């Protein structure tokens, strides 16, 4: 047999035109075989049937800033139900002339959240900023000092209540969930059993029943004369519920960690807490970002269940607007509006988590 020795390296060739550029994209994505071509055509037909009427209804024929009577004669969407009742939907029974206060509180909150997106901003002073922001928000909502009239928490409602329940609910549930997950992995029998019982018990009941328990059964056990704020009780129920789910997701992340990571950390001389804090949790929590965010998103939406214990969150104020005879029957528009608000919240969480995953990725880039 003759020996083979390469004399000149082979040239690099360009891929065929039909596989790159616009033509390549259309071919591979839209007309890849007869079945996909058929699907593409059907989809185009469907969009042609649906989109133009929708645009006409929502924008061209729609009615803004009118009374309910005018709306009934119009062909398009009645956005007047939103524009006219916006303040009630957003702020509920908060005193009308004081509604600038929750508005500013929400703006501060959004500002802080927006600024927190960039992890480079996370330092000690920004932490103080959050604390000051929270105090100011609490003061604005509650009042009763420096000439601001006091507003009882029973009058809080609408968007501020939804945001309050979800943001505090989620930020408190996350660390609690992590602690429960670590506890469930613990070698100390008592702690392990405690965590398992907690997680399984809470996961075994619906959120609604926890909310009922918090609002109806729990006060029966309190000594006479002592009452705990209704919002706080709902808040605690949401935290306890969400934490149990987060704990199980985080446990999944912990189990995905290679034994070698623990061993390497131990071999350096790190103790349990440092090993967890510096080595294991940063990696485990990163792995479980997608399922964690799913839980946070569903917890955010579940805050609307507080309706059943007579808290006036965003959904409840909208429903109550709809029960006004003048606006009865315009539920499509009202629910679309609330859906958009919820969607904005959920979508920004999903978006942020994707960005976080990319930032934390240490693969070749």
């Amino acid at each position: 047999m003759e020996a083979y020795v390469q004399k000149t390296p082979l040239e690099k060739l360009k891929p065929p035109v039909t596989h790159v550029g616009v033509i390549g994209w259309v071919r591979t994505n839209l007309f890849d075989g007869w079945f996909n071509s058929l699907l593409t055509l059907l989809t185009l037909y469907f969009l042609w049937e649906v989109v133009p009427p929708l645009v006409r209804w929502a924008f061209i024929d729609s009615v803004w800033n009118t009374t309910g009577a005018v709306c009934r004669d119009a062909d398009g969407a009645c956005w007047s139900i939103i524009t006219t009742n916006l303040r009630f939907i957003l702020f509920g029974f908060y005193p009308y002339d004081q509604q600038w206060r929750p508005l500013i509180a929400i703006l501060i909150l959004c500002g802080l959240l927006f600024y927190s997106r960039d992890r480079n901003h996370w330092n000690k002073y920004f932490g103080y900023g959050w604390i000051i922001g929270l105090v100011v928000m609490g003061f604005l909502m509650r009042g009763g000092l420096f000439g601001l009239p006091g507003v009882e928490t029973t009058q809080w409602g609408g968007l501020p209540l939804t945001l309050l329940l979800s943001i505090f609910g989620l930020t408190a549930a996350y660390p609690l969930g992590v602690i429960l997950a670590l506890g469930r992995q613990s070698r100390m029998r008592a702690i392990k059993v405690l965590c398992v019982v907690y997680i399984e018990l809470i996961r075994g009941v619906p959120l609604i029943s926890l909310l009922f328990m918090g609002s109806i059964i729990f006060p029966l056990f309190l000594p006479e004369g002592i009452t705990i704020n209704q919002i706080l009780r709902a808040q605690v129920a949401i935290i306890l519920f969400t934490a149990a789910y987060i704990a199980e997701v985080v446990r999944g992340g912990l189990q995905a960690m290679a034994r070698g990571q623990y061993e390497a950390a131990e071999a350096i001389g790190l103790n349990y807490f440092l090993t967890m804090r510096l080595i294991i949790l940063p990696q485990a929590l990163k792995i479980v970002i997608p399922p964690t965010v799913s839980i946070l998103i569903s917890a955010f939406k579940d805050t609307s269940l507080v309706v059943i214990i007579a808290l006036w969150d965003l959904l409840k104020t909208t429903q109550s607007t709809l029960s006004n005879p003048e606006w009865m029957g315009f539920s499509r528009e009202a629910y679309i509006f609330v859906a958009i608000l919820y969607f904005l919240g959920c979508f920004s969480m999903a978006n942020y988590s994707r960005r976080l995953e990319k930032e934390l990725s240490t693969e070749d880039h």
Partner: protein
Amino acid sequence: MNEEAAKGTDMQAMAEPIIEIIDMHKWFGEFHVLRGIDLTIQQKERIVICGPSGSGKSTLIRCINRLEEHQRGQIIVDGIELTNNLKNIEKIRTEVGMVFQHFNLFPHLTILDNLALGPIWVRKIPRKESEEIAMHYLEKVQIAEQAQKFPGQLSGGQQQRVAIARSLCMSPKIMLFDEPTSALDPEMIKEVLDVMIDLAQEGMTMIVVTHEMGFAKSVAHRVLFMDFGQIVEGNTPEEFFDNPQHDRTKLFLSQILH
């Protein structure tokens, strides 16, 4: 490899034992992995342990820094006996460095942070100084230019050199190597062995589980052969390779040296 240079450290320095293992047994469930290990290792001594897989050699060195717990007998490291006392275990772990087969670098930290972690959190050295220590050892394993990269961006040989540097940052008295070149592509083995030979020349006490017999011949003071959880034979490398005594040693050597 230069035999004389590598072994140049003064044998007189081995005045006192730094590790003493007395009749040590270990079981994994019902399985008797280590069956009465007696071993004394002097300061600055370099030991290579070889043997077939499952013979307990990795388990033996993992017992020395308590990654595995022994059930009978005694292990005394640097004057401290290994018991359930957590403080003692942590203290011994800071004195004993370990290099793993699969490197076990922390993938979420940069190379520099991988190295500086121990000094900062265990030795409580300020971050700036810790990073200087880290850079010093990175230069030593000739990889300083990679300091800001993540482990996943390095080759296997580079990762293992980083892992060695990470252990050295804790200024250990003893270094344990658990098959440090077994997971490497052949062309990367030499760069890791060279770092280990440098370390040997500086007089580090080393216990190395490896099948690199060239390394054993040029660097080790003693070669131990283990089988079925026992030390079957231990001798100077010259005697061990040229004149093995035990039948099982002879068989093992005939299979790996061809």
